[in-house]
């Protein structure tokens, strides 16, 4: 009996993952212009309303008395106290004071002087008495939404999913997370806005597809191309115009109305008149979504009311030049994703401005199909976030497995059809594993990687998740290549498998969602089966592994005999052949120990022959190099 190693007890793998208790979790759309909160109730996502409106204007006013006003009331104060009323704070999230794009364009605000190396923008409010960061401003908006949700649900929230634009960088995402934390929310996840919209439409239940999300909000336009594969949405490309939105339509229409009223386009600097005209323009725009003409009444000054009729044709003629700016970014995003419009499986409309018939016509003409627009485009992102939040909170739909731990082991197919597990069942996510493999045959120039899921020992009894190849490895003897395979499961349960051949640096990788299309019952069954078949599986595995090893040795021995028969000494060839015959015979049987014994016998019989071959190869190697050196001198 060989010496056994001594072991220490190890800690279980990362057990730090957030486990949110089952319960109340909300989805929050923290928008540039408006924000919303939604929750799943009785299986349906709904937006929570404040009195009658679900939209909370994303505006925060810091009043002189120290109080903070959020929402429509703050928006109403914007004209009086522009410096103390922060709107569109989302544009400043994660931006530094030196970030010209953020600080130069929108300048009703005073910025607090930052110290050297100050990482964030600070708004100076209340006459410089207070400096607030974009994170703090966003947190005020989130606090209001949190309170709204807690009032509606009758208790504290367990967590929230907050949406962010697909193009947000790490800094902007972190700032959003920080705002959530500051508002006292457990941020379970940040979700890309276009993905949220797709989830609201339940598109994740399809097998695969490519979708465009056309998001025309109050002040920004975003286009995203999403690819759905194996239950995972991947953002293929994004584009847009951060200064284009429904508000631009209102301004264009207001200017048109002012002209009709016989007034200059800037309303002669009359802020109150400007406000009234803008409000009338927005109302008319909304009316004309359903009607073909509407009456407009605006007080030029108290008692002097202008009345006119506005038709949809007029409106569309006015907004068309603005709307036309949407098309180039869409074309670019499609090109970046390498797609033709006809290759898309669907188009989703997001943002209030997409209610306008002219916008829908434009989208239909660009993409050559009618867009999905059944869900309120103002609410669709928040609704999708609520669906995700509900899942994360453990109120899972029956057809989806939620991962806090890896529910089934993840591994790779090995020679002989056995499964090598890299990540074991019940490991908490995120987690990872690295293992090194090598080539089985001489001059093998590629690897076929077959990613598997399940507890059984044989590939045939496991679930196939993905296959990919790593090719372009230069020919070398078996066992020389070093293939390092890394499995990583992130907090979202996404598995990334990457393979790298160490001697050449060739790489290949793939991403899959192991829980895709897997129900709780199936997981249960797969685990039960693995126990029911444990003894049989293990003996089968032991047998297959030895058979593969036997094949490898037989093949190598045959090749050696063919190449170097001259190196055999008397009787050696016969002994080797006999051992090979014995191995082949045992290989046909089912006793793995007999195969192993036969392998060892063949090893022993061919040991001296192998040594001679090795020596000869070494000598030839040296000689070969000499010849090469000579040739290169003589030839060229």
């Amino acid at each position, binding site marked *: 009996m060989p010496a*056994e*190693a*001594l*072991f220490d*007890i*190890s800690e*279980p793998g990362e057990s730090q993952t957030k486990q949110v208790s089952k319960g109340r979790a909300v989805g929050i759309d923290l928008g540039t212009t408006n924000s919303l909160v939604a929750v799943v109730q009785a299986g349906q996502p709904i937006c929570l309303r404040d009195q009658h409106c679900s939209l909370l204007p994303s505006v925060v006013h810091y009043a002189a008395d120290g109080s903070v006003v959020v929402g429509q009331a703050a928006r109403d104060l914007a004209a009086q106290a522009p410096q103390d009323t922060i709107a569109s704070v989302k544009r400043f999230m994660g931006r530094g004071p030196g970030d010209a794009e953020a600080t130069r364009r929108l300048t009703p605000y005073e910025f607090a002087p930052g110290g050297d190396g100050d990482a964030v923008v600070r708004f100076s409010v209340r006459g410089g008495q207070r400096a607030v960061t974009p994170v703090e401003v966003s947190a005020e908006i989130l606090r209001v939404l949190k309170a709204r949700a807690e009032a509606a649900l009758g208790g504290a929230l367990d967590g929230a999913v907050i949406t962010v634009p697909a193009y947000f960088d790490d800094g902007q995402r972190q700032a959003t997370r920080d705002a959530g934390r500051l508002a006292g929310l457990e941020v379970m996840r940040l979700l890309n806005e276009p993905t949220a919209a797709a989830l609201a439409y339940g598109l994740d239940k399809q097998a695969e597809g490519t979708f465009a999300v056309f998001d025309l909000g109050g002040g920004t336009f975003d286009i995203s191309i999403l690819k759905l594969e194996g239950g995972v949405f991947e953002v293929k490309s994004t584009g847009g115009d951060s200064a284009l939105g429904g508000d631009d339509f209102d301004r264009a229409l207001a200017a048109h109305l002012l002209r009709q009223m016989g007034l200059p386009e800037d309303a002669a600097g009359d802020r109150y008149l400007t406000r009234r005209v803008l409000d009338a323009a927005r109302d008319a725009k909304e009316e004309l979504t359903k009607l073909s003409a509407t009456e407009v009444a605006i007080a030029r000054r108290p008692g002097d009311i202008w009345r006119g009729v506005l038709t949809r044709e007029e409106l569309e003629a006015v907004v068309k030049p603005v709307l036309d700016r949407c098309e180039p970014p869409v074309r670019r995003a499609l090109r970046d994703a390498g797609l033709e419009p006809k290759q898309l499986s669907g188009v989703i409309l997001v943002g209030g401005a997409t209610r306008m018939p002219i916008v829908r016509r434009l989208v239909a003409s660009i993409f050559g199909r009618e867009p999905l627009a059944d869900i309120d485009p103002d609410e669709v992102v928040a609704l999708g976030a609520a669906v995700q939040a509900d899942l994360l909170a453990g109120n899972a739909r029956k057809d989806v497995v939620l991962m806090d731990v890896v529910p089934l082991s993840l591994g790779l197919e090995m020679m002989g059809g056995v499964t090598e*597990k890299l990540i074991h069942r019940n490991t908490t996510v995120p987690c990872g594993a690295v293992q090194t493999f090598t080539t089985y045959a001489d001059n093998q120039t590629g690897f076929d990687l077959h990613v598997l899921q399940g507890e059984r020992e044989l590939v045939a009894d496991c679930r196939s998740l993905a296959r990919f190849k790593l090719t372009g490895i230069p020919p070398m003897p078996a066992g020389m290549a070093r293939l390092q395979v890394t499995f990583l499961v992130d907090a979202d349960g996404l598995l990334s498998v990457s393979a790298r051949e160490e001697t050449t640096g060739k790489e290949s990788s793939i991403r899959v969602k192991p829980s895709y299309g897997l129900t709780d019952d199936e997981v249960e069954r797969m685990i039960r089966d693995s126990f029911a078949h444990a003894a049989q599986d293990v003996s089968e595995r032991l047998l297959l592994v030895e058979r593969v090893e036997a094949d490898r040795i037989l093949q190598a021995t045959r090749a050696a005999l063919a190449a170097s028969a001259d190196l055999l000494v008397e009787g050696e060839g016969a002994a080797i052949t006999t051992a090979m015959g014995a191995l082949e015979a045992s290989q046909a049987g089912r006793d793995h120990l007999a195969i192993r014994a036969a392998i060892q016998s063949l090893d022993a019989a061919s040991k001296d022959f192998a040594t001679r071959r090795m020596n000869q190869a070494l000598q030839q190697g040296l000689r070969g190099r000499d010849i090469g050196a000579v040739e290169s001198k003589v030839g060229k």
Partner: protein
Amino acid sequence: MSIEVTERAVDEIRKAAAKRPSPPRGLRVGIRTGGCTGFSYLFEWSDAEALAEDKVLELGGGQVKLFIDPKSYLFLEGSTLDYASGMMARGFKWTNPNVKETCRCGESVRF
């Protein structure tokens, strides 16, 4: 057949458990595929309760619990878990009659 755990091993597991910041629910032992010769031993605290399918060995009057999944149990049946200390090293040690071969480092085994 069963799995035997020596008093010394039980004692060492209890001592090690007491040193943890939070008491473990049990100690998971088993065999996993992997390692140079195909299988290796697993020794890991479990902060979760035993799974429904696990075999649970209660030792030292219930102070120490070993969780063993059914597949590993197949390989461990008949083994003895001991704690050994010598000049160079100390640690837990399996004496497993099912093992036919170990690799040079001794951490992985063949059946």
